[in-house]
């Protein structure tokens, strides 16, 4: 077994554009579920809308990259309103079913051959970073940066710097919001909706605002992911939503840094497992073939999610008193 490569690849997973993108999505879910108590199972849909909004507005309408990203964010705001208006007055599990269904509708609309001209259907979209000028906006001259497992070319470094900047702004925003009077009302709604209503607050409006803000974080996650990889409908499946949930619950749903650290741990662990399991199978320690070894890590995710929710629902950094979903 080549431990050097395994450790190197695992450590590289600590800081990649993918990790940053999913940390942003997990942050959005923390806003939705951790602070406002909204069961959003459609975070993959928010990411897809953000990514496609950016890519399509650059490729089809010829927008510059920054305007395209704004369109992606506006798209996720629209998606949040579309989901929130019919369901936020109803019980929580209705929102769960509607969000998962809406994310799937979005994915199927991006996948269908009916709109191939715009969406690229199953092939997805590519070339928008260059066409929209995002690649040219790179301030780093070509070359190799960093050291050890964290060696990046200038393009990856640009995406990582940009992504970290966005992530930092979003983390700050969430922290500032949650210590404001607005944040206290949101947490109050999570604890006891009727009590907040009795105080004369418009609970529906507050929930919708929370859904929109979290949705924007999710959409930004999709945009950062699109700034690095191609946009492909196969990414935004329901499994991705559940992986983001797992990383959120791992770090702690009702915390500011929990979702970020949870996402880093989750994707680093994924990098580790996807390196070590095939190695174990090819060296004969695990009696399975290579494809089965790759499948095994998702089985472990499922088991991990179950154990986490049963035994430590507040996550690594959370406070159990903050988790009203634990009866």
């Amino acid at each position, binding site marked *: 077994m080549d431990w050097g490569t395994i450790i190197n690849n695992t450590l590289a997973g600590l800081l990649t554009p993918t990790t940053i993108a999913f940390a942003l999505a997990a942050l959005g879910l923390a806003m939705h579920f951790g602070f406002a108590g909204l*069961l959003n199972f459609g975070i993959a849909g928010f990411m897809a809308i953000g990514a496609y909004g950016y890519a399509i507005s650059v490729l089809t309408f010829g927008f510059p990259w920054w305007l395209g990203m704004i369109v992606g964010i506006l798209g996720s705001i629209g998606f949040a309103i579309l989901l929130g208006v019919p369901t936020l007055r109803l019980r929580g599990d209705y929102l*769960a*079913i509607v969000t998962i*269904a809406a994310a799937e509708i979005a994915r199927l609309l991006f996948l269908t051959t009916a709109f191939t*001209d715009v969406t690229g259907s199953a092939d997805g979209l590519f070339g928008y970073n260059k066409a929209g000028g995002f690649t040219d906006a790179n301030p780093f001259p070509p070359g190799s940066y960093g050291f050890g497992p964290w060696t990046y070319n200038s393009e990856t470094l640009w995406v990582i710097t940009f992504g970290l900047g966005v992530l930092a702004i979003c983390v700050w925003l969430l922290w500032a919001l949650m210590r404001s009077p607005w944040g206290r009302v949101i947490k109050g709604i999570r604890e006891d909706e009727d009590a907040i209503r009795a105080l004369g607050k418009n609970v529906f409006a507050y929930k919708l605002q929370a859904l929109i803000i979290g949705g924007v974080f999710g959409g930004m996650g999709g945009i950062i992911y699109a700034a690095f990889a191609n946009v492909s409908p196969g990414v935004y499946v329901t499994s991705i939503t559940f992986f983001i949930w797992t990383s959120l619950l791992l770090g702690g749903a009702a915390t500011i840094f929990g979702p970020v650290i949870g996402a880093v741990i989750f994707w680093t662990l994924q990098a580790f497992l996807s390196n070590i399991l095939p190695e174990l199978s090819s060296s004969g320690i695990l009696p399975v073939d290579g494809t*089965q070894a790759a499948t095994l890590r998702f089985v472990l995710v499922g*088991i991990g999610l*179950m*154990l986490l929710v049963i035994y430590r629902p507040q996550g690594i950094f959370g406070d159990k008193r903050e988790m009203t979903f634990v009866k």
Partner: protein
Amino acid sequence: MNFLSVGNPKRLLKPLIILFTALIIGLGLMTPAHADSVGEEFDYAVVGNVKVEGEPVAGVRMTVEGGDYSASTVTDETGSWLIGVPEKSEYSVTIDESTLPAGVIVLEGGVTQEVTFKLGDRVVQNFFIGEGERNEVAFIDQVIARVIYGINFGLMLGLASVGLSLVFGTTGLSNFAHGEMVTFGAVAALILGVFLELPIWVAIPAAVLLSAGMGWSLDAGLWKPLRSRGLGIIQLMIVSIGLSLTMRYIIQFFIGGGTEQLPGFDSPKINLFGSVALSVNDLYSMGISIIVIVAFAFWLMKTKTGKATRAISDNPDLAAASGIDVDKVIRIVWIVSAAMAGLAGVLWAYFRPGIKWDMGTQILLLIFAAVTLGGLGTAFGALIGALIVGLLVETSSLFIPSDLKYVAALVVLIGVLLFRPQGIMGRKQRIG
């Protein structure tokens, strides 16, 4: 390509030419980048992919014309093609229908379609192709056939939905692992009927029994202990998501990522009237679904356990106080729910046809749609919801592209929540 040239009688008379052609094609296949691409020296390209029912078609001739430029190529073994063009402007793309497999034609838009370059360096042009007969069938016959398919699909969806609804009614859990119970039934039938080569009339009942056993063991090993621990409903729901991921990937671990078929999936078609034809399997499937649903209705309405189930759905505390053993009834509900989901999986495997590791994920949202449409927690509401969703999914492909057929059902789900959130049969206090 190869067999096409051999099949041509003129060339059979000239074996040398065949040899020559085969050589050229052989050389071409060895370097596929050149077989399917022309004009690679240009910066811009028109690309596409030719597929029939998801299967790539090789050797289809594509032509791109525009201005005074013209080039053509054939698709490679993955069905894809690429034609480079000198400038970003308008081009017309033509697919040569005579090179498509027999009976396959372009269904929409004609054989020549216009493409325009946007900002990207490439533009994709795919043709909507499929079995040619479809266009010749009278519209009313299509409608009748789709309605019958829809009822068939709706009935099997109903089998899966009433279970989810019963579990929700008695325990309050929205079980996201229910889709995997459907897959489990189909996979059990596959293992017994194909890998162990049991006769199919043994394999299917045994698969349903195994599903029932699965329901029993899940309640005994997971849900009952969690209820005793006092986990909240949302916690249980997330546990069911973890369970769904675990089961889904365990199934992929054993049967792989491909599509497997049960024995006898390609049963002969029987012409009913006009051009409406149903396979023997479809008829069996509808018969079995109706018998099981009637038996289920009898169980729920007339037997003691059925009445106890409805009592718990109405008010668990009152039911427990009046001497009903709530845990025992919930155990039975899990067994019934899993057995019916397993049966639905077997029937769906014949209907699709095929068994795939993630088929449960596909149907889960339709089950949720059916249950919500009918009213969460109501068994017969779920049945009516399932029939409506089944009809909608099948008939919608008359009006919208068939790869969007599930979208119609999901849009209706959201629409229902807007206007009548308690569903068709539900009561208003359930929605909280």
